[in-house]
């Protein structure tokens, strides 16, 4: 037996790191091209703007990735964001302290996630179906609660937060770091992270090995709901209104970011840094296209093409060539 001779140490880790670097290189390349192509791109103002734009999708993508790793999907996140803006706006306008209002909104996100877990684990519904159902009904509930009107938030401190910066970096981007670091540790260095992967790979084998599969699924959707509610708070702070129809289509952007970041929709493959980079790549493309006066319709097409290209090359390399 020649097991001692170990030539190729850690193909998997290397691969993950390599893919991350490739994405980073792509992002930097885009930035360089855009800085050359348009003078306004590299301005401090625009970069801050770009970071703000990308941050919210990035946080959504992290939560979404947990779910996708288990082999599921969460279509509700855009609707949860919209719904959360309504909750937080109503609470603040009702005079609830901002801190408490945020906490309650986050708990609403947790509850929605738990409901998804319940539907999947207890009722045996496919993730696609249960989260699609929440997507439409949450928008409906939000509209009922607001009578179809927007609620403008009358609290300046709350709104100031997302407009200010700390150490020259927009607060919203700090929030990505605030979410990203614990998420990274959770996914790659805790046993719960390992369980997410194992459940996504083979739920039956995991169960027989003593992994609590049901709890793992609850956890994934709860975290996704939590991330979405958090993004809802940030969005409310950024534009100062609560409106249930906001964040339309953000679930698709989150999924796209995750997939561009190397997450496999078949489950059991994914990371935290990948989706974050994916989100900022998408944000850069949108931002650059705006600056270059590219028709907004084209932006959508470019995003679609980009998804196909990146996932295709990723798949090629995964298969070993």
């Amino acid at each position: 037996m020649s097991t001692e001779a170990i030539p190729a140490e850690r193909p998997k880790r290397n691969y993950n790191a390599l893919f991350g670097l490739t994405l980073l290189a792509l992002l930097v390349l885009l930035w360089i091209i855009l800085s050359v192509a348009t003078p306004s791109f590299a301005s401090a103002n625009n970069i801050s703007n770009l970071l703000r734009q990308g941050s919210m999708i990035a946080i959504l993508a992290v939560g979404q990735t947990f779910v996708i790793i288990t082999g599921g999907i969460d279509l509700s996140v855009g609707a949860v964001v919209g719904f959360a803006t309504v909750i937080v706006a109503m609470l603040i306008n009702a005079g609830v302290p901002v801190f408490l209002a945020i906490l309650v909104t986050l708990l609403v996100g947790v509850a929605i996630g738990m409901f998804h877990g319940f539907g999947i684990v207890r009722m045996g519904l496919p993730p696609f179906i249960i989260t699609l159902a929440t997507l439409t009904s949450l928008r409906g509930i939000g509209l009922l609660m607001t009578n179809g009107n927007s609620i403008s938030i009358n609290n300046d401190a709350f709104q100031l937060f997302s407009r200010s910066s700390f150490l020259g970096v927009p607060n919203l981007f700090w929030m990505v770091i605030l979410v990203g670091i614990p998420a990274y540790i959770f996914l790659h260095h805790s046993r719960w992270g390992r369980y997410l992967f194992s459940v996504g790979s083979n739920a039956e084998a995991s169960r027989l090995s003593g992994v609590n599969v049901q709890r793992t699924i609850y956890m994934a959707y709860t975290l996704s709901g939590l991330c979405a509610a958090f993004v809802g708070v940030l969005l409310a702070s950024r534009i100062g209104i609560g409106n249930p129809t906001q964040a339309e289509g953000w679930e698709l952007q989150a999924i796209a970011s995750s997939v561009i970041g190397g997450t496999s929709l078949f489950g059991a493959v994914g990371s935290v840094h990948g989706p974050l980079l994916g989100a900022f790549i998408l944000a850069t493309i949108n931002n650059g296209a705006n600056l270059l006066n590219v028709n907004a319709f084209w932006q959508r097409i470019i995003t679609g093409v980009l998804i196909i290209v990146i996932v295709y090359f990723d798949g090629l390399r995964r298969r070993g060539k």
Partner: protein
Amino acid sequence: MTSTAQELHPALTLEPGRTILELKGLEKRYPGTHALKPVNLAFKASEIHAIVGENGAGKSTLIKLLTGVMPRTSGDVIWEGKPAALATPHEAMALGINAVHQEVVLCRHLTVAANMFLGEEDSRFGILQQRAMVREAQKIIDDLGFDLPAHVVLGDLTIGQQQLIAAARATVRGTKFLIFDEPTAYLTRKEADQLFTLIRRLKGEGVTIIYISHRMEEVFELADRVSVLRDGTLVGTRNIAETNDAELVKMMINRSIEQVYHKEHFTPGATLLEARNLSGKGFENVSMTVRAGEIVGLYGLIGAGRSEFVTTLYGRHRKSAGQILWEGKEVQVNSEHDAIRLGMALAPESRRDQGLCLNLPVGLNLNLPIYKRISSNLLISSAQEKTEADRQIANLRIKTPTRNALASSLSGGNQQKIVIGRWLAHGAKLFIFDEPTVGVDVGTKAEIYRLFGELLSKGAGIILISSYLPEVYELADTLHVFRRGKLVATHGFRTANHEDILNQALAEKQEKPGGQI
């Protein structure tokens, strides 16, 4: 073009003894593994040629190259005097090369008949002739002497029966060269006999057979010649009459094994587990005890209810009646979680469906049950994660380039070792091993049995399920025989003879699938 090749060389024109297929410097490299070093070997028309070797020696790789499933790195394959590219399975089939692979690669959700004609469906004006296909398939199956229905969904059959269907499927398409990769791993003795009859008949019809197995007695029963692979190298080829068991084992692992079934006897300790009149899906009214320091063997045909019985003990399925007692007290085992907390461990029967996370690293698969132990609070100790995984890899000699390689890249037998290995560090009190040595080579089998002894000496008890009689016979202190969901006989260590045990397991006519139990 390929079909004209077939017409020019119909199977009947082959004279025995002529070389039909020749490998010239055939080689295969995977990233990180040199699976097959240049191999030269010639197969004669209508011979049964056995290939043996350790887990990971390169047997399945050789087959994948010959059937066009994988591209080769270098070398030539000469088919009937002409080089063959063998780039796709389709091309291999057109030449008349077919295989029954180690893992059944058919569609579980389709019917037996649909599987048999997959890719060559009978259709008229684009409409499938379903009835005609079922009739045709049934005729082929009956003709081969298999007692199986053609209209049922494949997934409803046992793995062994699926394997027979795969064999039947391979025989129907103008086959001239047929490869069996460990076909009997999941077969009962009776099914194996049916298969052997089929193989001999094909040989009589001029088909050349490659037969891969870890069971020496089968090789000697069936083969004309045998080739040995070790670490991707062809060590030698022998005529079956001019070699023996010991020589082959020596060639395979480069050392000799005095005793495969290493059996130590311990004085049994306290009763760990007791089942009292337990019933559930697939078994009825089963009572037995397992004590510390003993191996309780469960023998029976596949489908006799043994796996259902142990998975119920393990909380995977609900019991319908009876009691489970753990260390003398009645317990409710409602989930695997409860079972594991009590101190049970289960290595399940099917490594693909229940055993492994195939697209995850070997290390993660090995550590899955013990992550709780090797993490403090939330964080995993990555040092411990590495040492634990490496320890099991060394312990069971799992052949993998590193612990980070994906489980799917390991050979069948090495995957099986992961399913066993993950529990060895767990510190459970009762180990349930369901067909633990399916596809495992002789050397490692001996090693696994030695580890059983170690577990026993530490005061654990073992339930060992096996459809391979010699294994339970030589290892079990208490041997229970199951038939159709009932425990029909109990023996002590080596107190009955093989014949009697077999008869008890079979008794009347073998059950037809379709699930009346």
